[in-house]
């Protein structure tokens, strides 16, 4: 029974979650799910910050993770308001049907 976890395990987990976030961001067509994939990527980066903070025995990484959380909360508020407005005007949540700025 090993009682110590290699640091790389945390970082690899973070990389896998970030990859899943990218996959969701590119593959999904519902605006809300795309938005949730962005949150997943932000969470993966937060895990990296906290892990590096542990490795350096320095608290700065925690502060960065805290700021990322605040910015993500602000982003969620504005983004969901935009989604509401788009739905009010177009009646759809499919991301490829909102294409009036497409050439």
């Amino acid at each position, binding site marked *: *029974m090993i*009682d*110590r*976890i*290699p*640091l*790389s*395990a*945390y*970082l690899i987990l973070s*990389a*896998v*979650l970030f*990859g899943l976030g990218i*996959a969701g961001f*590119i*593959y*999904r067509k*519902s605006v*809300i*799910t795309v*938005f*949730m*994939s962005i*949150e*997943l990527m932000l*969470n993966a980066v*937060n*895990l990296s910050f*906290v*892990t590096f*903070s*542990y*490795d350096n*025995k*320095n*608290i*700065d990484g*925690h*502060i960065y*993770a*805290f*700021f990322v*959380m*605040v*910015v993500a*909360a602000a*982003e*969620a*508020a*504005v983004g*969901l*308001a935009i*989604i*509401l*407005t788009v739905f009010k*005007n177009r009646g759809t*949540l*499919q991301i*490829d049907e909102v294409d009036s700025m497409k050439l």
Partner: protein
Amino acid sequence: MDSILFIIAAIAAIGCGLNLVLQTHPISSALSLIGVMSSLALLYLLLGAEFIAMAQMIVYGGAVMVLFIFVIMLLNAGAEKRSDKSLFAQIAGFPLLAVLVVLLSFLIRQTFPSTVSEVSFGEWVGGTAEAIGKQLFTKFLLPFEVVSVLILIAILGAVVLAQKEID
């Protein structure tokens, strides 16, 4: 004990993340995202980040996800329609992504060999609310104030966007 908790949390996080990407209904995706966030909070606790773990549960698991589920319920968002993707994306998308993740993992393992950098629970508990508060109000005072202005602007922006009819 550490490794058991880590493995449980890691499997839960990856499973919920996969579920988020694969489910077609937004509500299932939102619930999976809550699972990811809870397991990440457990991992933060293992890394000695008490404050961040609690903030994760309250801000992400509580506030942000309630906002998401509220919007999903409000818009009555159903399962998304399958739309035609390009052939290249269908065939090469997931293999290329797997290559990216494997490459990243390889680089991480090269940069942080497992004998040098290890994590063990309780060895360093620096992320208490007291320590974070001290740093936040001394070294990071300016970013803290700027971010509070940012969140004020975001609230005003959300109110303006949600009430106005834009054509």
